[in-house]
């Protein structure tokens, strides 16, 4: 029996106004601006100002997505919010968004799939629609990392990457103009790499340090990234996920017109393109140069950018690869519907 289809019927983005260039960061991070660009493909990113909370950015992106899909807040019957940087420890940030938009008393669910939040959110939304539990699901994707970054040379190669931002994908059981049909989402995890990417504290495993922090404890509160491990595993796992999701849908990479990856690093996107034997990267959407790595939001921002290009044509296949802390990774396959 075929499941009822699910469609990305609208998209919206919200970015902080504050632009931070490589030149702005160079001295503090001890990195030459051009070196940052060569290592990442990033020239500038947006960083939150005071008051740009995770919930506020997500709410603004949701308003934009609702407008794009010609919906109003009362139409939404399930809210999923993916973030690594919630407003509060408890409760999740989704209730704040529900309140900000005066939505109905719908289920509100925070998810923690890190940079794979877009894929996890889409999979959950697709399942909710297929099961009949919901018909209109808002998938809010948002991160505000800048307040927690270490702006010193010891963390330069990590802190240079991240930007703040939000995107929302409206997932529905019916099409709207320029919808994307969600054909399949493939996700996988290998928890043996849990310490190669992430932030250890605060949490129950390492606790929350009381009093003056030792050097090791300071690092536990900062993003940690085993660069070589991340690059090796991300390149191979994302490429394999793309090939697997295509194979199980009877498609080949040659049939894919657009690739909208998690925007981690331009060199990683180039590596992925090589591993997929792409003859051209013209169909690979990158917003890294001006947005940086916006973590949970990055794939949503890139997808919104693709839809606004006006270039996708009816029937185009769109591939969505991502890789995240965990490690967890995956790929989605969508098809552009008629205008």
């Amino acid at each position, binding site marked *: 029996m075929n499941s009822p289809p699910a469609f990305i019927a609208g998209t919206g983005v919200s970015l902080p106004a504050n632009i931070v260039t490589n030149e702005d960061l160079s001295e503090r991070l001890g990195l030459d601006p051009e070196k940052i660009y060569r290592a990442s493909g990033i020239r500038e990113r947006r960083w939150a100002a005071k008051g740009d909370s995770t919930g506020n950015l997500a709410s603004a992106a949701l308003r934009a997505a609702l407008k794009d899909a010609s919906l109003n807040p009362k139409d939404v019957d399930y809210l999923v919010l993916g973030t690594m940087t919630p407003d509060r420890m408890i409760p999740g940030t989704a209730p704040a968004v529900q309140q900000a938009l005066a939505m109905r008393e719908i289920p509100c669910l925070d998810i923690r799939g890190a940079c794979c939040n877009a894929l996890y959110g889409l999979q959950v939304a697709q399942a909710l629609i297929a099961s009949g539990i919901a018909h209109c699901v808002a998938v809010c994707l948002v991160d505000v990392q800048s307040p927690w970054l270490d702006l010193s040379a010891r963390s330069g190669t990590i802190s240079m990457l991240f930007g703040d931002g939000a995107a929302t994908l409206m997932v529905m059981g019916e099409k709207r103009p320029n919808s994307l049909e969600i054909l399949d989402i493939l996700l996988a995890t*290998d928890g043996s790499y849990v310490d190669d990417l992430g932030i250890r504290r605060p949490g129950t495993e390492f606790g929350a340090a009381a009093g003056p922090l030792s050097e090791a404890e300071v690092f536990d509160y900062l993003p940690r990234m085993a*660069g*070589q*491990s991340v*690059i*090796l*595993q991300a*390149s*191979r*796992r994302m490429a394999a996920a793309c090939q697997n999701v295509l194979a199980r849908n009877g498609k080949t990479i040659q049939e894919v017109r657009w690739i909208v990856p998690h925007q981690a690093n331009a*060199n*990683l996107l180039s*590596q992925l393109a*090589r*591993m997929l034997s792409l003859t051209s990267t013209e169909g690979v959407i990158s917003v890294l140069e001006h947005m940086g790595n916006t973590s949970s939001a990055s794939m949503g921002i890139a997808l919104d950018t693709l839809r606004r290009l006006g270039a996708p044509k009816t029937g185009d296949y769109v591939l969505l690869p991502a890789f995240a802390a965990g490690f967890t990774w995956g790929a989605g396959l969508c098809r552009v519907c008629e205008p």
Partner: protein
Amino acid sequence: MRLMGLPPRVRQLLTDSARGKTVDSIDSTADLFEAGVIDSFSLVDLISAIELECGIKIPDADVIPDRFKNVAKIEQYINEHPQ
């Protein structure tokens, strides 16, 4: 660097990624990362080339920089994992 024990495509890849460095002068036990011959991205390509050239599938659990950090280790891995 003693590259002759490596498959041709792997040898070529190492030579290309050295980008002008005199790879022949590097000892087979010298760290290729420290010598600037490879970086994390070229290691991904190197591992793909080993798989293709040697007809083996390298499991993700074996994809660790330390296993491929010098020519001796690369040769050892290939020899221990025949087609």
